[in-house]
């Protein structure tokens, strides 16, 4: 075995170990902050796997989008609303756990089935495009994947408008979670101060 292959094997095993243990930690740990930080670690290791597959652009995009944006926003949300409160005891906890574990195991077996029924051999390893991949990704996004690309952007726009509607509570006259009338409005108006009492 050559040195390059050995290094790849070692890197692959370490990364997979981090991913498996990390994602178990994300699900099983009690502290939500630890879960969020571990999630960042899992995202980073997935980026490492992409690097091993010679997909450096996808790896960098993974770090930028998942670690730099999504994980930071999750942490941000957790730290802004980190209330220490005792959760109400949930009824039928054991049967709920049973149902969710059944669903997870079914999904896992589906994935294993896909894994076993496909042949993953690349026809010719020399055909791998490596550094060219950025150009090829762009070509695909603007030709045969144009419709999904545009639909995804419309979806993101909808999510953004939805978030703005939810955040600007003046649109709704009552609080959606409690049903009480909204007593303050947080809208910027040029002639009024930021926070005013409603009559």
């Amino acid at each position: 075995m050559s040195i390059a292959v050995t290094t790849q094997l070692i890197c692959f095993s370490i990364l997979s170990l981090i991913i498996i243990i990390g994602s178990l930690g994300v699900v099983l740990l009690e502290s939500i902050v630890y879960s969020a930080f571990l999630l960042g670690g899992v995202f980073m290791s997935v980026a490492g796997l992409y690097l091993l597959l010679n997909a450096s652009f996808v790896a960098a995009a993974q770090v930028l989008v998942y670690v730099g944006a999504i994980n930071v926003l999750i942490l941000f949300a957790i730290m802004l609303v980190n209330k220490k409160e005792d959760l109400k005891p949930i009824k039928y906890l054991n049967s709920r756990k049973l149902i969710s574990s059944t669903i997870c195991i079914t999904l896992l077996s589906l994935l294993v089935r896909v894994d076993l029924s496909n042949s993953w051999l690349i026809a010719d390893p020399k055909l791998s495009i490596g550094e060219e991949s950025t150009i090829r990704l762009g070509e695909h996004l603007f030709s045969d994947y144009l419709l999904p690309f545009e639909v995804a952007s419309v979806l993101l726009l909808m999510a953004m408008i939805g978030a703005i509607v939810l955040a600007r509570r003046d649109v709704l006259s009552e609080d959606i979670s409690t049903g009480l009338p909204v007593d303050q409005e947080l809208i910027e108006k040029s002639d009024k101060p930021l926070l005013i009492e409603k009559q």
Partner: protein
Amino acid sequence: MTNGLDLEYSFNEALKSFGVPSEIAHIIWLPFPMLIVLVAAVVGVLVTVWLERKISAAAQQRIGPEYAGALGVLQPIADGLKLLVKEDIIPEKADSILFTAGPVLVLVPVILSWLIVPFGQNLLISNVGVGIFLWIALSSIQPIGLLMSGYASNNKYSLLGGLRAAAQSISYEIPLALSVLAIVMMTNSLSTVDIVNQQSGAGILSWNIWRQPIGFVIFWICALAECERLPFDLPEAEEELVAGYQTEYAGMKFALFYLGSYINLILSALLVSVLYLGGWGFPIPVETISNVLNIPLDTSFVQVITATLGIIMTILKAYLLVFIAILLRWTTPRVRIDQLLDLGWKFLLPISLANLLLTAGLKLALPRFFGG
């Protein structure tokens, strides 16, 4: 375009002549550029700290460091040694794992980003294809470290500082990436070496600063905000937050934050010089000079001279920008957090989008000047 000095190739050839297989030679070579860049980064920090002390003293009509070495040049080393031997304190109620991991997560991405800084045609650690995009991706990891240390300190000032740092970093990353995108569009490549080569046609006249003046200003403002330098040093605003996320840190852990912020400043200055000021290029192209003097460029002696000139030019441009950053720090007041976010989202973001559109239009209209 000549290839210039290629140390890796010469090193591998030399080892091969001793009968070492090329794979082993490659492995022996690997640590050298990393070590050199690490040492260069740390020495760069020492120089910058000294400059900061001297320039701030001049701005406030003081003398500044004077007794440690000539003109106080040894003062930063004394500072570093002091931090090294200080007691390492972890507050009792702090979360010790996250408290330790935070500073490491802040420093490591910054040092990794030096991977793509070119000092010459072949004088960089790795000419990776994703180049400048790697830096943008890596710099987005930093806020996680800041949030981590802010949270783990179990101190309200630290938490506020960490949250501010993350908010600031998210807001300014977008205009930064958009202004880099305009450059990438002109170059047709993400690689830093290609970006410099594209600017090397006519010396100082072909530098990107003339083609991307708006992008240059946006990038510089965003880089200052990402480095948390005044006027954007809200995360550690001492009058409001004691020292922000660094409040509980002492000794070497604090030194990691300190190192990280200064290495980041030098890195940003280097990248501004690579993206907008022609990188290692001399104001008059080296090819023109060699034609006038009638010296062939491919002799080894001339190659060493041009490589040295390239390194000197890169560092000179970077330190000019560092000087401007230091001068800005000691002469401008701090902005408020709402002003900071307004500037990022309501001003820089639309302008950088407009700049991108303008660049695309000019690229189609004048492909000769804006890269076809």
